[in-house]
C-alpha cells in the first residue's frame, strides 16, 4: 500500500526547522491538508525523542586533548633525514660539509690577507695614487678643446708607481747596463781613481 504524500511534504521540514520564508502560506495549507498536519504532529513528537539523544550526546562529550604538535625546525628535519638515510647519502652529506668548510676557510683567509694589504697592494695603490698624482681628477680642468671643437679627455697622468716602474730597468736591461758600464771607457776612467790622482799629480 502506497503511503500518501502531499506535494508540499518536502516543505514540511523547512517549516519544522524554522527555515521557511513564506510561513503564512504554508500554515494556510496546513489547515487544509490533513496529511501534512498529521505528519507535522508526528515529526514534532519525534523531535522530542531525538532531543533525549541530543542531551545524552551533550552529557557524554569530553573535550579532546590534542597533543601539542610543534613543527620541527629545519635543522631538526635535516638531521632526521640524514640519520634515517642510507650510508651513501650520509657520506655525500659529510663530503659536502667538508667542501663547504674548506671553501669558507679559504675565503676567510684570503679576505684577511687582503685586509692586511699583503695580497692586493696594487688595488690599494690604485685607489690612493690618482688623488696624489692628479688632484684635479674630479674637476674638468683636464678637459681641453681640440681642433674639431670637441671635448677630449686628457689621458690621466701616469701614477708615480707606474712611472717608477717604467723608469726602473728590468733585470735584462740592468744586466745590459752593467755590461755597458763595464765596457764603457768613460766609466772605466771615472772608476779608476788611481789614474785620476796620477793625472792630478802631473798637473
Amino acid at each position, binding site marked *: *500500500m502506497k*503511503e*500518501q504524500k502531499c506535494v508540499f*511534504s*518536502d*516543505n*514540511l*521540514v*523547512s517549516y519544522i*526547522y524554522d*527555515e521557511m520564508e513564506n510561513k503564512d502560506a504554508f500554515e494556510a495549507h496546513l489547515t487544509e491538508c490533513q496529511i501534512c498536519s498529521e*505528519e507535522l504532529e*508526528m*515529526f514534532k*513528537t*519525534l*523531535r*522530542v*525523542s*531525538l532531543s*533525549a*539523544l*541530543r*542531551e*545524552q*550526546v*551533550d552529557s*557524554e*562529550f*569530553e*573535550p*579532546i*586533548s*590534542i597533543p*601539542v*604538535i*610543534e*613543527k620541527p625546525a629545519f635543522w631538526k628535519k635535516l638531521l632526521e633525514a640524514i640519520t634515517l638515510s642510507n650510508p651513501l647519502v650520509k657520506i655525500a652529506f659529510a663530503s659536502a660539509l667538508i667542501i663547504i668548510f674548506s671553501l669558507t676557510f679559504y675565503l676567510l683567509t684570503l679576505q684577511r690577507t687582503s685586509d692586511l694589504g699583503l695580497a692586493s697592494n696594487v688595488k690599494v695603490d690604485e685607489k690612493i695614487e690618482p688623488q696624489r698624482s692628479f688632484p684635479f681628477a674630479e674637476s674638468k680642468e683636464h678637459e681641453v678643446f681640440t681642433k674639431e671643437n670637441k671635448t677630449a679627455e686628457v689621458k690621466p697622468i701616469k701614477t708615480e708607481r707606474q712611472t717608477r716602474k717604467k723608469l726602473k730597468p728590468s733585470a735584462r736591461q740592468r744586466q745590459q747596463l752593467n755590461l755597458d758600464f763595464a765596457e764603457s771607457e768613460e766609466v772605466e776612467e771615472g772608476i779608476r781613481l788611481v789614474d785620476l790622482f796620477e793625472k792630478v799629480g802631473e798637473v
Partner: protein
Amino acid sequence: MTANLTDEQLIRKSLDGDNEAFGEIVKRWERKIFALCYGMLGCKEEALDVTQETFMLAYRSLQSFRGEAKISSWLHRIALNQCLTKMRSKKNSAEEINIESEPSLSTAASKKAVSPPELVETKERAELVRKAVRSLPLELRQVVIMKEFEDMTFQQIAETLNLPVSTVKSRLYLALKQLKMKLEEKISAV
C-alpha cells in the same frame, strides 16, 4: 586573543605555526564533530577517538586546505570520512538496514497513538533513539545528525555534503519518516 578571530584568520595563523590558533579551532568545533561522530558510530569512546583523529588529520593537512570551502564543512567532511573508515574497519555497516528492502511499515502502525516520551524513561528513550538512528542508511543518518545534533542549516549541510538543498530537505524528510517508524517498532517491541 584568538577567540575574536574568524575561522579563516585562525587557519592562517595556524599555517604560520601558531598552535594556539589551531587550539581555538578545536575548541570551537570539537563538540559538533563529536556529536557527528557519536551519531554516526553510536559509541562514545569511538566517537572521541575519531574526533581526535579528525583534528589531528586536519592539522596535518592544513597546507592542503585551499579555503574554497568553509572550515566547518572541511572538518565535517574529514570527520565523516574517518567515521566511514572506522565503520568499514569494524564492518559495522552490516547493521545498516536497506530502505528499499525494508518492508514498509503499515500505516496503521504509524497511526498508533504511541507517544515515546510517555512510555520510557529518558535514558532508555535515548538508547532507543540512538539505535533507531544507527539503523538508518548512511546518507539519511548524516543528514539527521547534522540537523538535529548540530543545528546546521540546510545550506550548511548541502555545502558539507556537496548536495543541492532540495536533496538535503527530501533526505531529511525521508529520514524522519523512517526514524519514526523504527522507533514505533522498537517501542511496540518493548
